[in-house]
């Protein structure tokens, strides 16, 4: 498919100091582009893809680490504060990457197709939404009838505590939902999890009576955030104020903070996933995925191991739910539709189920397609519509183009296309998962024979 001379060039670029040069060049040019044209989607794409150049090329591990830290801890926040839309995109990528990594444990490792994963996300979100807002005092009021000036139940700083509580609560929910479900296999499991996902959403929608737990379809707001010390804002201003170009507000800093929190969660998830994968537990999960009958004959307790996968996956979604509630300060059942579950699933499949870098890449790709490419196209089309431009030959005026053809409305088409194309052309995903290569003594002996 790729011409030979191109292959040669690529191969040469992977040796010596070239990788270092390419990575740095990519990162610097991306930063420069975004800096000079802070509204360009294209410039932003160049910057964000530098992360994957960093992943792709083999370099010294310390170099990778340092560049990674510089990118994620300095360049992304600063660029993001300059144009808050960028930060939103990066934040969403992080949130979805974390969710996809969680789902990856259930689908990628244990092979349990969970179509209701977003339920656990909802559990986390509503957990903090309830305790981090005035909802406790609204219990006896129908939605919309509560008096104003109700107090908050807990201080905003309890947020951090609830990030940990969510791990437990979501894991328990996972076990609770999983216990009746996990005896089923394959398609049956998928259907039942789909049902449970909807049950949680409908519960959130209807649990405004007899006691008003969730405020129904109107959702809960305002939800508190942890306090942001003035000194952090001032410090950021002093350090980066000149590069950012405007005074940084606490609101900006909140966005940065939630992005960093999401990043921290991703790192923890990736760490936990890797460690588990390469242990008794991870091997048992993979064995279950490969062949349940053989796995149980080897002494692997099926239901318990599946529940463990469900619980671990759920707990990650729970944490991200708390984070979402805090960052948005508003939660409604709409955020937890079936489409979200499918979206996360398509990220896992696109990236490569079972592969950590793959799943992160999948999350980034789908989110960027959604937030930037589709919306960029929409913007472009609407500009054309307002102009006098005409498509030559067929003499079609852009102004007559139906608004139904707004690309931003074609998110579902996009998910569908991704799933179909991946299944046909690359079922193992963009970055397929690989079994760890062990250094075995017998391998060396084997070569000699």
């Amino acid at each position, binding site marked *: 498919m790729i011409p030979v001379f191109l292959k040669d060039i690529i191969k040469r670029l992977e040796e010596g100091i070239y990788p270092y040069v390419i990575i740095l060049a990519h990162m610097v040019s991306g930063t420069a582009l975004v800096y000079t044209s802070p509204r360009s989607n294209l410039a932003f794409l160049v910057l964000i893809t530098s992360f994957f150049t960093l992943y792709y090329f083999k370099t010294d591990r310390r170099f990778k680490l340092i560049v990674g830290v510089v990118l994620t801890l300095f360049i992304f926040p600063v660029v993001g504060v300059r144009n808050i839309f960028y930060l939103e995109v990066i934040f969403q990528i992080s949130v979805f990457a974390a969710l996809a990594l969680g789902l990856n444990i259930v689908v990628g490792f244990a092979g349990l197709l969970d179509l209701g994963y977003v339920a656990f996300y909802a559990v986390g979100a509503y957990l903090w939404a309830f305790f981090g807002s005035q909802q406790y005092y609204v219990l006896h009021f129908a939605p919309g009838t509560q008096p104003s000036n109700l107090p908050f139940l807990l201080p905003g700083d309890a947020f951090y505590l609830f990030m940990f509580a969510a791990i437990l609560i979501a894991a328990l929910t996972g076990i609770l939902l999983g216990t009746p479900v996990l005896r089923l296999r394959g398609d049956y499991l998928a259907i039942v999890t789909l049902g449970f996902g909807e049950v949680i959403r409908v519960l959130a929608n209807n649990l405004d009576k007899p006691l008003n737990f969730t405020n129904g379809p109107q959702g809960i707001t305002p939800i508190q955030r942890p306090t942001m010390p003035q000194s952090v804002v001032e410090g950021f201003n002093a350090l980066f104020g000149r590069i950012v170009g405007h005074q940084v507000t606490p609101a900006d800093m909140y966005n940065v903070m939630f992005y960093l929190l999401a990043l921290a969660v991703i790192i923890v998830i990736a760490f*936990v996933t890797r*460690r*588990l994968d390469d*242990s*008794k*537990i991870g*091997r*048992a999960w*993979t*064995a279950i995925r*490969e*062949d349940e*009958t*053989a*796995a*149980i*004959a*080897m*002494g*692997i*307790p*099926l239901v318990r191991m599946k529940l463990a996968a469900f619980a671990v996956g759920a707990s990650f979604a729970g944490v991200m739910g708390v984070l979402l509630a805090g960052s948005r300060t508003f939660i409604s059942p709409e955020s937890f539709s079936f489409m979200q579950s499918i979206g996360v699933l398509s990220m896992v499949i696109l990236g490569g189920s079972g592969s950590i870098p793959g799943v992160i890449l999948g999350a980034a790709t789908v989110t960027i397609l959604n937030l930037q490419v589709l919306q960029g196209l929409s913007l472009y089309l609407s500009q054309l519509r307002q102009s006098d431009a005409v498509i030559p030959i067929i003499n079609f005026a852009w102004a007559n183009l139906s608004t139904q053809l707004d690309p931003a409305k074609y998110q579902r088409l996009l998910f569908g296309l991704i799933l179909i194309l991946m299944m046909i052309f690359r079922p193992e995903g963009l970055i397929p998962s690989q*079994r*760890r*290569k*062990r250094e*075995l*003594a*017998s*391998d060396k*002996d*084997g*070569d000699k*024979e």
Partner: protein
Amino acid sequence: MALLETVNIIKRFGGLTAVNKVNFRLDTGRIVSIIGPNGAGKTTFFNTLTGIYQPDEGRINFNGRMLNGLRPDQIASRGISRTFQNIRLFANMSVIENILVGMHVHLKQTPIDTLFHLPNFKNEEKESELKAEELMTYVGLKGVGNELAKNLPYGGQRRLEIARALAADPLLLLLDEPAAGMNPQETEDVTRLFRRIRDEKGITILLIEHDMRVVMNISEHICVMDYGEKIAEGTPEEIRSDSRVIEAYLGRGAVAGQHEEKIA
């Protein structure tokens, strides 16, 4: 001492009685075969022993305890390991990982050990890796530890299945048609391997096999099933000349003398 004993076990599927009142006794340290025509209920009998099916009636005793009502994984952890008629490896895991899965019941690492790579975890992984390599050498799979199981040749996959079963340090090894699809040389090799497993590791072996060369060569005792029932039992010599066995294989009215050699 009887390692395994079944008392009148019955397994029905709807109107079909696949295993009918089978009484079977297996002493420690022996190599015993179960033979019988296709559909005789041999594999169902295996599946009942390993807990994949629960017997409708009757009792199964293993190593002094009753197995009825236990799940397959619980039975496996009591010391029964098996291979499958149609190879069931974890195709997308490496050879060594397949064997490590076989050790599952013996690994004591906790999630905490695993997450923080505590000494417990590291030592156990190192030890089990070494043990897995030993097993690979033992069954004749040296130097392919990092290959995916699905990439092994057929004979290698059969051997890997045996290594995986051995990894659990079983008391009893159930082999379901282990020589199926093998050429004469390979068959001879695995037959020798089974004998070594019994002699060197002291593991009792119960096998289902159609290849009569294997059965007659290796078995100390043979049990014949037909239509779900045990129709005969005895040493290879006794089975060879048993008229009910010949009838089951060749049909009523067959002249015993003519067909003896075909069975043998």
